[in-house]
C-alpha cells in the first residue's frame, strides 16, 4: 500500500509554545488512522497545518507524493484534503442542499451538475429528508452529518475529522461509525481525531498517539492503548498497571 499522506519533521510554534515539535509519520491509502492523545498535545494544530490554516515553521507535507506544505486552505482543499471542524460549522442560513452544492462546486462550474452531485452525496449520508431544511434548524447530530456530507462532496482523497463523535448519544454514534465505514469503503482515507475510545477501537486500522507536540506511539489500536507510555501520558504519570 502506498502512503497517501507523508508528514516529515513538522514543526510549529506559537509565540513561545511549541505545539508541534518534530512530527513525522505516514498515512496509508485507504486506512482509517486514529489520531489520539491528551488535550493540548497538538492534534488540532496538526490538522490545521496539514489543511493550510497555519504555515509550519519547518517540515514537509506530501499528498500522494506532491508537496502541499503550507498551501492555503482553498488550495489544499482542491488538491483533495478535506476537514471538518471541532464544532460543526454549517452555513446556517442556507438549506442542506445549498450547503452541499457549495461544496460540490469545487470541481464543477455548472450549478445543475453540482446539484446532482450534492443530491447523490446527501442520499449517501442519509440526509434526504432534510434536503430543503435550513441548516440552522437541524439538530446537532444532523449538523455533524452535514459537515461530513459537505466534505465528501469536495471529492477528497483524505478526510480529517476533528472530534466528530463528541456529544453524540450511543445510537447516533453507532450510525456515525457506520457512515464513516461506508465513506472509507469508497476509497477515502480518514484521519480521525477522537477522544471517544469506543469509536477509535471500532473504526481505526491504526492509531497514532500525540503527546506534547510529539509522536509518542504508532500501531494497532489494541496494542498502542496498552503501551505504558501512552497510558502514562493520558493519566499524567501516576498510573501503574497492576
Amino acid at each position: 500500500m502506498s502512503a497517501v499522506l507523508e508528514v516529515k519533521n513538522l514543526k510549529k510554534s506559537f509565540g513561545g509554545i511549541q505545539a508541534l515539535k518534530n512530527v513525522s509519520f505516514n498515512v496509508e491509502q485507504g486506512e482509517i488512522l486514529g489520531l489520539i492523545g491528551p488535550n493540548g498535545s497538538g492534534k488540532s494544530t496538526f490538522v490545521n497545518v496539514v489543511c493550510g490554516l497555519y504555515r509550519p515553521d519547518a517540515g514537509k507535507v506530501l499528498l500522494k507524493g506532491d508537496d502541499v506544505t503550507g498551501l492555503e486552505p482553498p488550495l489544499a482543499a482542491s488538491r483533495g484534503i478535506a476537514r471538518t471542524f471541532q464544532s460543526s460549522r454549517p452555513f446556517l442560513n442556507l438549506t442542506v442542499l445549498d450547503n452541499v452544492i457549495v461544496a460540490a462546486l469545487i470541481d464543477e462550474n455548472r450549478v445543475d451538475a453540482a446539484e446532482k452531485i450534492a443530491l447523490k452525496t446527501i442520499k449517501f449520508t442519509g440526509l434526504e429528508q432534510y434536503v430543503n431544511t435550513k441548516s440552522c434548524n437541524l439538530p446537532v447530530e444532523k449538523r455533524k452529518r452535514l459537515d461530513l456530507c459537505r466534505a465528501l462532496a469536495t471529492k477528497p482523497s483524505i478526510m480529517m475529522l476533528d472530534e466528530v463523535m463528541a456529544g453524540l448519544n450511543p445510537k447516533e454514534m453507532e450510525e456515525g461509525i457506520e457512515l464513516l465505514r461506508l465513506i472509507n469503503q469508497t476509497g477515502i482515507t480518514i484521519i480521525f481525531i477522537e477522544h471517544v475510545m469506543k469509536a477509535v477501537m471500532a473504526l481505526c486500522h491504526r492509531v497514532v498517539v500525540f503527546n506534547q507536540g510529539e509522536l509518542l506511539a504508532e500501531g494497532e489500536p489494541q496494542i498502542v492503548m496498552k503501551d505504558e507510555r501512552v497510558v502514562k501520558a493520558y493519566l499524567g504519570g501516576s498510573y501503574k498497571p497492576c
Partner: protein
Amino acid sequence: MSKKMKYAVAGFFALLILAFPLLVDNPYIIHTFFMVFLFATMGLGWNLIGGYGAQLSLGHAAFFAVGAYTAVLFVVYKSITPFLGGVVGIVFAVILAIIIGLPSFRLRGPYFTLSTIAAAEIVRTLLLHFQDFTGGANGIPIPFKGENPLFLQFYSKAPYYYLALIMLIAVFLLLRFLEKSKIGRYLAAIREDQDAAESLGIKTHKVKMIALIISAAITAACGVLYAFTVGFIDPDSIAGLSLSIEIAVVVIVGGIGTLWGPIVGAGVVILLTELTNMYLGAMRSGASLMLYGLLLIIVILFKPQGLSALFRKKS
C-alpha cells in the same frame, strides 16, 4: 390574494411605470423617479459586495465619480461619445476596485471599509487638485448643444427616465442570475462562515474581488448616466463620503443582501428625501442627510434586516 390577482396588480404597476413619463408632464417628478431608478441600480451593485459579500464599502462614490468624470472629460476634450467614454470609465473603475481589494480583502474587521473611504477621498482630492484638467471644485458643466442621442443629450427628461429604467432592469436580472450562480453561492458561503468556505475550496479573495469588480462597474455606469442627465458634475457632490453613505443607506434601509431590498430602499429613501426637502425648504441638504443618519440608526437598532423583511412572508 390569488396568483392571478397578483399578476394583474404587478402588470398594472409595470404598465404604469412604463407609461409614466407620457402621463405626467412635470420634469421634476420624472427626475425624482429617475433618481429612484438610479439609486436602486447603484444599491443593487453595492449589495453584491456589501450584502451578499458582507464587505461594507463606504467608498462607492469613487467608482461613481471615476465613471462620470471619464465620460465627461472624453466629451469635453475629445468629443467622444459617452458610450465609449463610459466604457473606459468602467475600466478605470474596475482597476480602482482591484487596487482597493487586493490589500484589504486579506484582512478582517473594519479594514476593508476604511480602505474604501481612503480610496474615495484620494479620488476626490485628486479631482480637486488637478483643477486645470477637471475644473476643480467648480466642477465641469456639459455644454448643451441641442438634442443628440449619441451624446446622451435630450431636451426632455423622459429618455433619461427610460435609460435608467432599462439599466435597473438589466442589473436586476444580472443579480438575480448571479445569486443562484456559482459566484453568488460562493459569496453566500463566505458571508456565512469564511473559514468553513475556504475549507471547501473557495478562494475567498478571488470571489470577493469579482463581486467588487462587478459592483464597481455597475456604479461607474450609473455615474455616466447621472452626469449626462444632470449636465454638471463636481468632486464634492459625486466623489464625497455623503454619496457613498447614501448608497449604503438605501440598501440597508431596504434590506441588505436581498434582491428587492435596494429597490424598496431607493423608493423609500428618495421619496422621504424629496418630502423632507419640500417641507424644510431652505435647509435642503442638511435636512435630507440628517434624515439618512436617523434612518440608518433606526434601522440598525430596530430592524437590521431592513424594510423588505416586512414584505417577506416566511423568515
